[in-house]
């Protein structure tokens, strides 16, 4: 009856209990709700930021135009924190999806843990502690993503954040170049260190400015549309700016909110000037 000898030591690795797997999957779906909450928070603060900019530039705000640095900083800090949270949640979401797939795969290949299969599990040894691997994967993913884009680049994709952050410079002088321009973009239209506030097609001040994603040149919506109207759809036309090699089409244009802000400041200043002259 030698066969009756039973090894009573538990294996180092045992399969995940299905309850745990279910909990993990629930956590993953809850994550969508959290992401929605964070997005709502971003939208809220953005709306406050926009309202604040509108107030600063409205006629209710008596000349000379000024910002409250504390208000501005509070808005910027809040917005940045929410954006960073959203970014991290998205990193986690990606990892969690991979982890789910790994867990399911593992479960499919594992026999149920019984007295008969226990020896098999003992053979796995410590190697199969894949939960640890999932944690490592998450850390790796996070690091990789952070290398791809710094947090500054992430927050700069949010228009309201960029507007708020640059409000002070633009208020000083609507044609001031922005501190980030010098670092990231070589191609901004700078004349004598100033940004041109005139559309290169009409030479008039910008109306509804749009920017080409390809070459970062800015135009008034109506004039660039008129220019591109003669082109065959997707192919587009040469950028109207001399020396620019880009071919642009309607799809390459998006509203330029920074230029729009510059124009608002310019007009606010114009109104102030007229008020002063009247007095």
């Amino acid at each position, binding site marked *: 009856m030698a066969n009756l000898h039973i090894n009573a030591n538990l294996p180092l690795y045992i399969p995940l209990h299905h309850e745990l797997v279910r909990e993990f999957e629930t956590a993953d779906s809850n994550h969508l709700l959290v992401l929605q909450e964070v997005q709502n928070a971003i939208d809220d603060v953005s709306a406050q930021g926009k309202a604040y900019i509108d107030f600063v530039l409205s006629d209710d705000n008596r000349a000379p135009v000024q910002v409250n640095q504390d208000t501005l900083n509070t808005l910027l800090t809040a917005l940045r924190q929410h954006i960073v949270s959203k970014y991290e949640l998205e990193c986690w979401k990606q990892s969690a999806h991979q982890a789910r797939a790994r867990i399911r795969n593992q479960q499919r290949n594992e026999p149920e843990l019984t007295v008969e299969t226990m020896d098999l599990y003992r053979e796995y040894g410590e190697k199969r502690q894949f939960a640890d691997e999932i944690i490592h994967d998450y850390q790796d993913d996070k690091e990789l993503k952070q290398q791809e884009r710094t947090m500054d680049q992430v927050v700069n994709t949010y228009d309201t954040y960029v507007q708020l952050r640059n409000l002070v410079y633009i208020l000083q002088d609507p044609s001031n170049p922005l501190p980030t321009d010098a670092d990231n973009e070589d191609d901004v239209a700078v004349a004598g260190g100033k940004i041109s506030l*005139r559309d290169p097609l009409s*030479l*008039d001040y910008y109306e509804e400015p749009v920017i080409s994603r390809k070459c970062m040149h800015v135009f008034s919506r*109506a004039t660039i549309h*008129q*220019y591109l109207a*003669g082109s065959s759809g997707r192919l587009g036309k040469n950028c*109207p*700016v*001399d020396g620019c090699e880009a071919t642009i089409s309607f799809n390459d244009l998006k509203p330029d909110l920074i230029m729009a802000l510059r124009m608002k400041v310019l007009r606010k200043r114009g109104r102030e000037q007229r008020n002063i002259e009247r007095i």
Partner: protein
Amino acid sequence: MSLCKTRLQEERKQWRKDHPFGFYAKPNKAPDGSLDLTQWTAGIPGRPGTLWADASFPITITFPEEYPSKPPKVKFPSGFYHPNVYPSGTVCLSILNEEQDWRPAITLKQIVMGVQELLDSPNPDSPAQEPAWKAYSKDRVTYEKKVREQAKRYATG
């Protein structure tokens, strides 16, 4: 208002505010006395120290309806002596050619400066008239004599 008209009004405003020394440019008067912004008369001074110096060469600039998508046409008086000027007086210059280097952002100021530059730096690869081009490539003495004679006819002061 059409893009062409807006643009030409802005060009006029900016020219009046600031333009390069020695140049002039103004829209022609229509028969009814109003300004015709699509037809301009301008004067190109020859660069000091060149064969073209001390003279102001008259040009007409005609803006098409599609301007600034299409370039304006620039003409010297017919028979103007220059390798890159057609017998009709039309200037052959890459920045004035829609198929070549014309871009809508090129301003009137850039155009007249480009024409000034062309005067003393002809492009031997795009001949537009026989006499000046031949002389320029084969008989520089005759070429310079003819250019000086022409400059005298348009002399300033």
